[in-house]
């Protein structure tokens, strides 16, 4: 058994400025550190969040500082679930060219979604959300048992 839904939830709202990407990554990695998640996994999740927030700012909100990006982070069972929402009009992920195709290999951009997909287990988009686009990312993690969980298990 791992952490349950009563465990940490984090909600962040940021203006669409690139310097805020750093803040979100720091906040998410600090939360993961508190959960004693191994550093490599924490870095992968932090990088995925950074890429998602950067895309939300640049492509979703088109760097309009009046538009917000929200980040929700929670633990569901042994899964980290992170939702990044922007106020953009959405896009068709199938139309995003693969940066691994030979003709795209030397392009300076277009690798963010690839990194998100590689570092997280599941990635979904929700274009029906009430404001803009939501990117929902999930990753299975090994969470150490807390003392209270151990007690519950022993009682069972």
């Amino acid at each position: 058994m791992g952490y349950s839904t009563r465990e940490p939830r984090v909600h962040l709202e940021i203006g669409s400025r690139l310097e805020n990407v750093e803040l979100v990554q720091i906040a998410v990695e600090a939360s993961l550190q508190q959960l004693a998640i191994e550093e490599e996994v924490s870095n992968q999740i932090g990088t995925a969040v950074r890429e998602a927030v950067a895309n939300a700012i640049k492509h979703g909100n088109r760097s309009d500082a009046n538009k917000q990006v929200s980040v929700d982070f929670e633990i569901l069972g042994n899964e980290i679930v992170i939702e990044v929402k922007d106020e953009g009009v959405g896009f068709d992920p199938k139309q995003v060219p693969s940066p691994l195709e030979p003709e795209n290999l030397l392009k300076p951009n277009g690798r963010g979604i690839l990194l998100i997909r590689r570092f997280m287990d599941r990635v979904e988009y929700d274009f029906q959300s009430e404001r803009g686009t939501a990117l929902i990312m999930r990753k299975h993690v090994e969470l150490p048992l807390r003392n209270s969980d151990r007690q519950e298990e022993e009682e069972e």
Partner: protein
Amino acid sequence: MKIPARHNSGVTILEPKGKITIGVGDVALREAVHEAVDAGAQNILINLQEVTTIDSSGIGELVAAYTTVTKGGGNLKLLNLPPKVQDILQITQLFTVFDVFDSEDEAIASFD
């Protein structure tokens, strides 16, 4: 942040430190490469040993630097990749593009 540059046997060695990420270090890398090229550098080696974090923007700057230098008839190679940078170069398949070295002497010799 200005990226330090030094020279060894006709090769310009750039040594970024810390982050090469969107808004932090990516522009500095671009400027350092352009400055080196404008000063006539043909052979550029980027030593990434002290880089702690790189993201898709940072990788994009490495690719742009490679393109700039090779279009001008020069060579750009990478030295001392930290594991995190190595991972990202593998995922993005850029290992097939860049020459990567663990030893400065070997890297310098490869430009001959």
